[in-house]
């Protein structure tokens, strides 16, 4: 069956929903999602959304912009950081107007708390900038935008999977879509398509991501010749519950929690004398991994402790109740009286589909791809540079999701409805048939091999030798994938099949991450090379672009936009 839209939005997290809300009601909008919208991974964001409201203490958006640029180790495009930080107060007030139940100050304003890397006076000390609703900020923002989408009667197709993008003469014109309930394959034609499919932390073994975060939209762009930007920059969040990887928000440290090593010592002051436990995530993750490598994990093991016991039960209950319940449910730990074992967990992808400030996807030659847009974690504006600050992802979603929605509204007016192209779904249908008939290895085993290889060779610490091994391994595993097989040959709710299809995206992106990381022979932000431990602005103050070629991802570069802040040594 063929569907026709003015705008097709792929992904129902905050970026997709916010864009949908921006598109006028007389446009035909279709929003497809692998899951019911409130199941989207934006809902797992805990700590807050950054905006210089100054409700708790003086703040300015220029400080927020500076922190975003410095936090990103100067790889951040400064025009994007300026847009993000200067638009942040408006974006947060808008969320409040839509109904987000923020915590409040005594005067009834939106409450704010400290978060990693957010400072006053250009780095002088921590500032309370994170607007929050307890430690479930992402979830209540997601619920709120979903409610608004209902009110607006946005047409949502839940449990529909995009399996390919369709291009015609360098224009994006449609997508091949799989309906989970029936197994039917549909062609969807649209004047404009927004990729808002989120991240792909599932390429790593230990991660904080949901199972649906497999990077399909990003990979389909890559497969169709669109470059991917800064893919070597993978954020490892310092405090994943050991050994599950489930996220414990930075808000725990924003509220005063501290990290303790196996000697019972607070170690962050050694690594970041000013911000200490509230240094940016790359700094804290490296510090934890360094302590563990030096044998100073708890009992010499591969984790440290996050200690909240001095905060008091009422503060934990009021502001950190979800994370204290995670500790209780998964570890049987009462966080008011016992420290929580934590270790870095793959959390966020700074890289992605290159876009301009309005979500328009930019090709290798620097020109816009007609009809194609990206926003959120799947996109690279680049507003996070080499390391994203906490609270800037929710902000990115609503600021740039809205801008993409505006651009789509404007551009759709001048575009013709695409003509259906006969046979567009043939490749997908053939691939499904092949997988169902194959007798090769099962998807789960192949996926586990990939996750282990990525975690072993391309995590917090990286070097040439390990990553070359990793790349060989991923390429060998891609060979296995050619004959991937499944048990379930049926049509209804065949999640076995979908997991096998998603694995192609994960494997493709794992290779892009490794090639990009091998290529960058310096250390910057989240990308730390043991064999090149220094930042090298002379040679590497530039974005990487990885483009598909017959020999694997090919690397080229584009300049970083520097407006207000010249690169300086990064001290916290």
């Amino acid at each position, binding site marked *: 069956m063929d569907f026709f839209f003015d705008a097709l939005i792929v992904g129902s997290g905050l970026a997709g929903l916010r864009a949908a809300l921006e598109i006028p009601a007389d446009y035909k909008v279709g929003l497809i999602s692998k899951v019911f919208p409130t199941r989207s991974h934006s809902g797992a964001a805990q700590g807050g959304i950054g905006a210089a409201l100054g409700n708790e203490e003086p703040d300015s958006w220029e400080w927020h912009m500076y922190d975003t640029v410095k936090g990103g180790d100067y790889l951040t495009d400064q025009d994007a950081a300026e847009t993000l930080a200067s638009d942040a107060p408006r974006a947060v007030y808008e969320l409040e107007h839509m109904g987000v139940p*923020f915590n409040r100050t*005594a005067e009834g304003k939106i409450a704010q708390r400290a978060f990693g890397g957010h400072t006053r006076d250009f780095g002088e000390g921590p500032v309370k900038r994170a607007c929050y609703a307890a430690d479930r900020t992402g979830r209540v923002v997601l619920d709120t935008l979903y409610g608004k989408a209902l009110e607006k009667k946005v047409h949502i197709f839940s449990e529909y999977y995009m399996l390919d993008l369709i291009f015609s003469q360098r224009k994006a014109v449609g997508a091949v879509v799989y309906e989970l309930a029936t197994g039917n394959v549909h062609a969807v034609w649209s004047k404009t398509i927004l990729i808002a499919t989120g991240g792909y932390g599932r390429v790593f073994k230990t991660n904080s991501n*949901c199972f649906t975060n497999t990077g399909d939209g990003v990979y389909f762009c890559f497969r169709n010749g669109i470059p991917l930007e800064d893919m070597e920059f993978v954020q490892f969040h310092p405090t994943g519950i050991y050994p599950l990887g489930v996220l414990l928000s930075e808000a725990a440290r924003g509220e005063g929690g501290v990290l303790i090593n196996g000697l019972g010592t607070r170690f962050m002051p050694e690594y970041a004398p000013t911000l200490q436990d509230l240094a940016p995530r790359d700094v804290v993750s490296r510090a934890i991994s360094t302590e563990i490598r030096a044998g100073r994990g708890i009992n010499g093991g591969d984790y440290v402790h996050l200690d909240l016991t001095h905060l008091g039960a009422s503060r934990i209950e009021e502001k950190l109740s979800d994370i204290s319940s995670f500790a209780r449910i998964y570890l049987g730990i009462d966080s008011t009286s016992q420290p929580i074992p934590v270790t870095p967990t793959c959390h966020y992808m700074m890289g992605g589909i290159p876009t301009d400030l309005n979500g328009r996807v930019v090709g290798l030659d620097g020109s816009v791809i007609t009809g194609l847009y990206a926003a959120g974690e799947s996109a690279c504006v680049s507003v996070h540079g080499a390391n994203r600050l906490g609270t800037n992802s929710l902000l990115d979603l609503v600021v740039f999701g809205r801008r993409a929605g505006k651009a789509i509204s404007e551009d759709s007016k001048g575009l013709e409805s695409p003509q259906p192209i006969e046979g567009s779904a043939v490749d997908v249908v053939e691939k499904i048939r092949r997988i169902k008939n194959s007798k090769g290895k099962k998807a789960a085993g192949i996926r586990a091999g990939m996750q282990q290889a990525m975690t072993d060779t391309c995590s917090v610490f990286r070097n040439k030798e390990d990553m070359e091994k990793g790349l060989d391994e991923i390429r060998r595993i891609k060979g296995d994938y050619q004959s991937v097989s499944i048990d379930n040959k049926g049509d209804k709710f065949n999640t076995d099949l979908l997991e096998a299809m998603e694995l192609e995206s994960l494997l493709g992106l794992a290779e892009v991450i490794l090639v990009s990381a091998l290529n960058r022979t310096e250390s910057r932000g989240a990308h730390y090379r043991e064999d090149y431990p220094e930042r090298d602005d002379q040679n590497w103050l530039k974005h990487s672009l990885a483009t598909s070629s017959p020999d694997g991802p090919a690397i080229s570069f584009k300049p970083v936009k520097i407006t207000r802040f010249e690169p300086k040594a990064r001290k916290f």
Partner: protein
Amino acid sequence: MKVTLRIYRFDPSVDEAPYYRNYAIEAEPHERVLDCLNRIKWEHDGTLSYRMSCAHGVCGSDAMKINGRCALACQKLVRDCEADLILVEPLPAFTVLKDLIVDLTPFFEKVDFIRPYLIAGEPPEKERLQSPEDRNKMGESIRCILCACCTAACPVANENETFLGPAPLVQAFRRIFDSRDIERVERLQQLNVENGVWACLNHYECTRVCPKEIPVTKYINTTKREIKRVFGPTQEKKDTSA
């Protein structure tokens, strides 16, 4: 340790009737029931279907009946199952589509019915002010993840499919007690019907199973009291819970 999961299986397009199948697997006591399901699906039987996403009790996808009780498979640990045999079944009160996947359409329609969004007038330039006391009147209702455990566990909802059900009532509570909302009275009126709040008979099953520990029954009773306060004591005769 060895555990056996006894799992409800049903593909209505193939099977004449549902059946149960046992899967004996190795599992650690600290692992989640969801980890066990994944092990079965990934290593033993890929034909098993269930929903999952975040795997830590935030998204609400993997609600099912575990040893007779509605719960999230990602929040239930093997060591908490208190038996070597773990019985896994789909949520009751809904139509089974395949194995552990049920049709939640009627559930979401009831959530939509209560208008789960803020209705307020023109906003000021900055945020609307709301005192911490007013903010706290919404209580734990903002924790609801729409997993449907409460509705599936509710004896009334299992008998009466026109009952609005606990989760939509929690969603309504959230807006009624949000001081910013201007349609409080209309919202209360909408619930002031036989199959609204008054169908609740205080079985407390919703409260017992809620994976986010929301005091669901208490909030329904608070709403009943608010209806009586706003519309007068004549409403009491509609209350069959007395």
